[in-house]
């Protein structure tokens, strides 16, 4: 980790650990998933074989839709001309298609990822999936991811004009890299859109997901300074103290009991500089997705007596 005193002034690209290939090491992880068709949607006599897939953490669930459809459509209840509504659940939690698999995985299972991770696919809607954003095809995913990307760049630079000046072929290169979870090609376009130093950076792009058993999750978008007032790197701990103090212990020098913070399947030490995560652990929407796994009580709606 770079620990220069003038970390705010050095060119941003010099802070990237290229030699060590750190970004690929952190973001290149894959998850083995085993997909079964929801039992109440099986029309064939025998339950169809599950589908196994080794999915990049950086990938989005709709990337699997084609293979899933091919594999299960013979066994699924016919829709009589109506389009299928494909979606997944994990243990009866509907999975959001607009976040990468790694984010879902961190929130649902944390560090201990089961091998394989069992997902259930549905070909039609039910009450579980009401919270999901509507999905009608890959164009919806492209729109969602590219807008998140643009939003992240806007947060850092204070405008999206650099993004809008990209040539059409660069736009295509970016989306193609996202489709293939190709971090290197992605970074080639991405680096041209970023600030040149941390001092120039208005805010880092960080989404904080707070996940608890039973109560699901809450997502907070909050400004995340790259540097503190003294010009030193702003840390994950400082960010949590700013954005969500209940995650920290009463004396503020550690996490509250039962809380863990992770990204890309890794536990994040509180002293980690946020900019370092942004350069090495960002997803392909250019956001750092920090996941705080908290005890159920943290997200329990206040009881009547407190209202």
């Amino acid at each position, binding site marked *: 980790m770079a620990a220069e005193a003038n970390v705010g002034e050095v060119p941003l690209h010099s802070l990237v650990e290229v030699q060590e290939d750190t970004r690929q090491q952190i973001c290149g992880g894959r998850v083995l998933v085993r997909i079964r068709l929801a039992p109440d949607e099986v029309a064939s006599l025998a339950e169809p074989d599950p589908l196994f897939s080794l999915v990049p953490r950086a990938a989005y669930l709709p990337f699997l839709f084609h293979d899933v459809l091919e594999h299960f459509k013979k066994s699924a209840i016919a829709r009589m001309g109506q389009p299928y509504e494909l979606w997944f659940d994990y243990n009866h939690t509907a999975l959001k298609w607009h976040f990468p698999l790694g984010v879902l995985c961190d929130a649902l299972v944390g560090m201990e990822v089961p091998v394989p991770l069992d997902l259930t696919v549905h070909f039609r809607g039910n009450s579980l999936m009401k919270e999901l*954003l509507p999905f009608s095809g890959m164009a919806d995913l492209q729109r*969602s991811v590219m*807008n*998140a990307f643009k939003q992240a760049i806007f947060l850092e630079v204070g405008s*999206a004009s650099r993004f809008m000046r990209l040539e059409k072929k660069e736009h295509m290169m970016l989306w193609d890299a996202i489709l293939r979870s190709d971090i290197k090609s992605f970074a080639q376009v991405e680096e041209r859109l970023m600030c040149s130093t941390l001092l120039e950076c208005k805010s880092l792009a960080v989404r904080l997901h707070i996940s608890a058993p039973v109560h699901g999750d809450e*997502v907070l978008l909050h400004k995340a300074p790259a540097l503190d007032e003294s010009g030193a790197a702003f840390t994950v701990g400082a960010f949590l103290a700013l954005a*969500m103090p209940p995650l920290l212990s009463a004396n503020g020098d550690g996490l509250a009991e039962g809380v863990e913070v992770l990204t890309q399947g890794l536990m994040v030490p509180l002293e980690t500089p946020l900019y370092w995560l942004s350069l090495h652990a960002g997803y392909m929407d250019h956001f750092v997705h920090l996941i705080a796994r908290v005890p159920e009580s*943290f997200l329990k*709606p206040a009881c009547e*007596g407190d209202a």
Partner: protein
Amino acid sequence: MFRGSSQAMLMSKAQDVSGGAVLAHLARLRSGKVEVHVKAMGSAPALRQPRFTIDGCKKFSKLIVYLKEALKLETIYVYCNDAFEPSPDERLSDLQKCFGSSGNKLNISYSGEQAFN
């Protein structure tokens, strides 16, 4: 925990973890109204009331649905700062704090066709 805790105790203990501390903090962060300034683009019809306020805790989807209904549009693309479309599940207060201008203003534009690529 079955012990009843008084509201005063909860208020004095911001770190209290037994009463949905995260939810309480989110509610505080997102309390208050966001002043939305809306602008039509291209051939999209204009709103009669282009400035209004919405509770900060509401999702962006609430604004999209409101605009769709008020303008009687089938499809709508709603942008923040003439730049990007926020996800429908984002909170208006979060957007205002990250992208808003002076005061509690949030600049929104919309179009019947896709813009700002």
